[in-house]
């Protein structure tokens, strides 16, 4: 399964801190990420990195009574090479995001 994030921000897009950033993720049949396209600190599409370990997988479903409901599945990952990285799949739009830059 390969999902794209849709439009990524161009070079002049200002990114606010802690706003989820879309990214590309390749997930297995069970929905766990296998590879993520990791961008590092740049705005350019990054290179694909393999997921070494899924340390935690959890779901959040909240704010359903508002016009901005939240339904996400989070993964705390260790990427190839030992880099910790957190992603989530938005269960409403089906896309993947990184919660934090880096």
């Amino acid at each position, binding site marked *: 399964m390969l999902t794209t994030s849709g439009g990524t921000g161009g070079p002049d897009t200002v990114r606010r801190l802690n706003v989820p950033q879309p990214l590309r993720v390749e997930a297995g049949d069970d929905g766990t990420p296998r590879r993520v396209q990791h961008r590092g600190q740049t705005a350019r599409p990054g290179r694909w990195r393999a997921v070494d370990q899924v340390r935690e997988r*959890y779901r959040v479903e*909240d704010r359903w*009574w508002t016009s901005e409901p939240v339904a996400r599945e989070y993964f705390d990952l260790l990427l190839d090479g030992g880099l910790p990285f957190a992603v989530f799949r938005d269960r409403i739009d089906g896309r993947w995001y990184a919660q934090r830059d880096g």
Partner: protein
Amino acid sequence: MYVELHCHSCFSFREGASSPAELVLAARALGYEALALTDHDNLAGAMEFAQAAKEWGVRPIIGVEMTLRPDGRPSGRGAPGSDGAASPPTHLTLLAETPRGYANISRLLSQAHLSSPRDAPALDPAELAPCAEGVIALSGCRNGEVPRLVGAGDVEGACEAAARYAAIFGKRNFYIELQDNFVRGDRARNRGLVALARRLGLGVVATNNVHYHDRARHRLQDVLVAVRHHSTLDATEHVRRQNAEFSLKPPAEMARLFAELPEAVANTRAIAARCTFDLTRDLTYRFPDFRAPDGRSADAFLEAVCFDAAREYYGRVTPDLERRIRHELELIRQSAQAGFFLRNWEIMRYARTHGLPARGRGSSVGSLVCYLLGLSGIDPLKYNLFVGRFLNEARRKEDVPDIDIDFAREARERIFAHVFATYGSEHAALVANVITYRYPMAVRDVGKALGLPEADIDKLAKRMRGRFARPLAEEMRAMPEFASRMEAPPWREFVRLVEELRGMPRHLGQHAGGIIISDTPIVEQVPVQPSAMAGRYICQWDKDSVADAGFIKMDFLGYPSLGHLYRALALIEERRGLRIDPVRIPLDDPEVYAMIRRGDILGIVQIQSRAQLQAILRLDIASIEDLVVQVALIRPGPIQGGAVNPYIARCQGREPVTYDHPCLEPILGETKGVIIFQEQVLEVAMAIAGFTAGQAESLRRAMSRKRSREEMEKLRDAFFAGARAKGLVDDATAAVIFEKIVAFAAFGFPKAHAAAMAETAGKLAWVKRYYPVEFYCAWLNEWPFGFYSPGVIVNEARRNGIEVLGVDVNRSRGLCVIEDDAVRLGYNYVRGIGAQTRARLDDEARHGPYVSLWDFWRRTRIERMPIERLVRLGALAFTGLHERALLWQLGLFYRPLGAQLPLALPYEADLVPLTEMTDGERLVTDLRFIEGAVTTRGHIMDLARGALHEGVTPSHVVDRMADGAPVTVAGFVAVRQAPETAKGFVFHTLEDRYGLINVITKPHLVARYQRVIEHAGALIVHGHIERQERVVNVVTERMELLPLAGTRHRALRHAAHNW
């Protein structure tokens, strides 16, 4: 495959979001073979769950999630960071492996409730060890002691705690519980728990901590948590569950979730297999044996009591009589219930020897044995009553007949006290009543949780409180300020959540009069908890669960009309020295039936409602037998079953007597082919569908409960299958008959019960006919009860020539008294005068009449407020001074200390001229300070005099008007009704100076005049006459509030009805 062992229903109050039946049906659909119910700290839903599970082929396992008090933990060890601080309570999952285990869980729950503050039950963990046998314990959810310590990183503490539980329950009876609800931290904690289990050699088991049957319900669950914390969803993020993963999941999904630890899934099955306790089969309940004083068996003793009584009642025991007695005794012997009958006999004897008014009700009245034991006052031979519905061969042995006894109000309290004193709290408990969410509270709770504006919620809640409220969505669509908002969050969710919440249990209350007694300790059958009254306990089951458990419930109900009757007889004796035995009041006096036929029935229980009156005026009631039919006829059952009009038409000969099938003639002959009595439902089901008596009875029982669509379908299928097999009627006719049965069954009277009710009504009617002063006086003293407010009864008394006099301190007493041929209102009708003041006044009255206000003030020493009220009500008119003058005088008695000593001076000298109150002011004062809209200085309609014009027709003229004539009427709202059976119609009984007027408002006008209907204390109605023989109704075309001088509609409503 997987079995769910940790599951909450809505009986985990303000936590679980699905009913036991919803969980069972979901479990069945998902292919679960077994399911455990583990509600928080109670077994309130356990029986409902077990019954539903058995019904749908899912094996029920009974358990609980027990809250444990933290202080019970050995000191010195706690989670890091919690040293010294009070740690929160912990949870532990307990499952009943064996009957002993169930008894232990029940006992533990009782201990938790009895030793804790209300609504915060928690068990001292020290209690666990002696009650651990037969219990399988799981280490609990995130809030279990062991998981919490593991989560906090205190591995040693966790091991110690786990070892302690393992020692209490035994190593193979204590499992480490693993939950993975996709909550952050679940996996890490589970890794820690598995390591701990390996180290201690304990088993692990997966559970899902189920809180709802379907994930869509997670929203309601979120709301319930917010409600529990008296807060909003926004403000409760930290205490709410983070996601929607606490549903009952497909077993395969659970197996996948724990794929790396197959033993955790395998153990769910192993534990389920071990839990062989079956709540529907294994209770050890036993009704207390009766030990006869002379050592005879209960059967022999019962027989002796019956034959002694038969000789006394009938003079001679004829062979016929003997045959019938022996038949019933044999049925009782076969089901080993002599003890039960004798226990009831003891209670009635206690009531009689202590002068407590009591009589049987319900189907037991059809039993000759019950009559001979004094459990009913009705001679079944005389009334042609049969015992079948009460006792029959087909009745399952464990099915206990209901013996229900009505008591006057105070008598009932004394009987409860007597039973608890006799059996003790270990062996007696009151039956619970599950209080469920209704619209207004559901609106308030959901609205608050969603953070909706308080003003909006208040408005909606009040709107939904109205008795004429339609479903929420409909009401909101009709309100412009809501209509536009309903399609968007949060209002869209609001509507759906309110509908989901409605009908869910809120808490356990006390059933009206049910009490269970047990030979084996009750706390081992069902947990008990404290009631509002010290020394009395409520079991956690409602009447349905108690019946399913096979417990013998005795129903002691409050029946104020018995108090009314006995009070009247006491007044007759007091006043005339005439002692009337209530048993001997004649029920065949033609004068009494003539009065009933005239419609002079106000204040007579069972036949006084508007609907009763209208039927009475069209039927020719001439005997107690007619009265028996009459009280059974105007009930929701026959009304919904469409029996009323055909019955009346057939009695009048306007319609031929027909039957849906000739085989029904013997059954329905006595009621002219329509179903009126409950017994007839059973017999019809037997005749048409070939049901046995037992099957028919279970049909009736099933229909008299809250029932699910699925259960109803099952019954329908069985009925149709039976009817086809029997082949008497085609499907269409079977459908017609089944609909009649369904419409009827829930709310009809058995004939025996109707006979008991008619008997009391007949006796009260006799008193009303011959001793009206006593009748009214007793009615006023027994109030509050019944259909009409005291004002209506008082005005009727006046129209019948009996004066009701105002309060007078030289003549009134604590209760109303008879003075010559009039009734003198008592202090019980003065608002703000309590029992203590009444006693004080009664006491002082013995020392002779008061000579002045000063004398009254000095001698009684009661508070200023009640004295002022008495003055305003004219109770000191004997002084010759008017109210304002007396109030001014009273003020002088309270002059500041030191200003002048109070001396018995001629105050008249001090008087300044004050204007006297007007008649209107006096009337308004009566309405303010006398209970129940009683007025002694004018009629309420005097307030409307200015608004009444020549076009308004008085009630006595209305009664003579022709069908279809246009008319305008006006009156005080004596009664307002919108019975469910009336499909949106509203009925008003208006009262003017001359009598009562019945008004019918059709549904479309109810919608138009909703605000008027809800607010009116008095009405003007424009419409036309609808006449059926002697029955006259005004059919509304327009209505408006009747303008009142000096008072508000709200005050009037409140005075009369507490609306």
